[in-house]
């Protein structure tokens, strides 16, 4: 039997089917936890945050347009939740506040189109990322996590972060350049 699509399950949840929502949570829990752990660097509260993401998704499920893909919609909720957690944590620790705004969202970039890395190169980048992810500012870390670990494309990442598609490419390039520098140091 064919597996139901995320969008079909979300439509069932919108009609009040709670079991379908359980199915969505089961499907996305590993992804969301992985995303939280990598983006927030193994935060102790990652599980609580992911739970909040699912509760927010349930509360707002009727705002989801079933003609669109479910996964970027859920990742968008997770992004907001994690960024807020990161800001709160930074404030509590008295650190300089983090900024997700960048002038690179203002102007067009010609050399920031989606490229196809070879599987070997992708694997190599992933290995380096696992080791050095914490050394990269969140603004660059998040697109790297979404692209290399969550395997989302530029458009989906742009939809989650609400930034231009070309900016996704720029941030990935800069993030990778930072990683390269760290590795050669």
């Amino acid at each position, binding site marked *: 039997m064919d597996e139901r699509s995320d969008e079909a399950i979300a439509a069932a949840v919108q009609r009040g089917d709670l079991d379908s929502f*359980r199915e969505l949570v*089961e499907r996305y829990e590993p992804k969301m936890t992985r995303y939280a752990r990598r983006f927030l660097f193994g935060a102790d509260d990652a599980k609580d945050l992911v*739970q909040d993401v699912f509760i927010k998704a349930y509360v707002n*499920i*009727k705002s989801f347009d079933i003609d669109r893909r479910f996964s970027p919609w859920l990742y968008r909720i997770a992004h907001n939740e994690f960024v807020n957690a990161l800001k709160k944590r930074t404030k509590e620790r008295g650190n300089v506040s983090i900024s997700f705004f960048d002038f690179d*969202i*203002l102007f*067009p970039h010609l050399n920031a189109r989606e490229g196809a890395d070879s599987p070997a190169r992708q694997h190599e980048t992933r290995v380096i990322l696992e080791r050095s992810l914490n050394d990269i500012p969140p603004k660059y870390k998040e697109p790297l996590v979404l692209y290399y670990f969550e395997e989302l494309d530029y458009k989906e990442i742009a939809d989650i972060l*609400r930034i*231009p598609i070309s900016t996704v490419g720029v941030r990935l390039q800069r993030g990778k350049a930072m990683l390269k520098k760290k590795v050669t140091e």
Partner: protein
Amino acid sequence: MEDSVIKAIQDDKAKMRSRWFFALRSALFTLVVVILFAALLYLVSFIIFALRRSGIAFAPGFGLNGWLLFFGGLPWGLLLLSLIVILILAALINRYEFVYHHPLFYALAAFAFLVVVASFWIAATSFHDHMFRYSTENLPLIGQFYQFETQEPSDVHSGEIVAVIPGRGGQGSFVIVDAAGVTSSVMAAQGVFIANDFSVGDTVMVFGEREPNGVIDAFGVEKVTP
């Protein structure tokens, strides 16, 4: 994880919002954007109207002195307010895919172009003239605002020509009477040529310093429609 999430929902700790909630929120959002956009059009068209009315808009045509007068007379407070409204609007509409998928510069440039074109069109109508007259008579606070923002700077003098005195080499000088009945003689400042193509009855804006003896050393004259 699934169990705790489902339990929170079953315990009524999380309630699904209705479609009405999102429809209402979306309508409210659209209303805020429309109101802000209308306010922005009003503001920018008012700035254009005020610059024309005070004569500052014509000043750049008269060289460096004109440009200095222009920049000194710009309503910087209103321009800053317009910029803030533009940025707020840009931030608000950045939730739409067709906006955030492209560099923000494109959205801002398109938006600024649209606002400026629409504002010039509004400023060309009699809308602000009517508002000026109506508010002066009925809405004292807004009337004062209109009067304050449209008043002429000290180096701009408008009035009707009551006498023309032809000078040498085609150079013209004349006498004007302003709305308050004050008479001034207009003479070209040193190094400035004012063509002798004015007639009695013309309404003009004269740019230049007015001496205590009632002579204006003009560095520019603009004929305006009365």
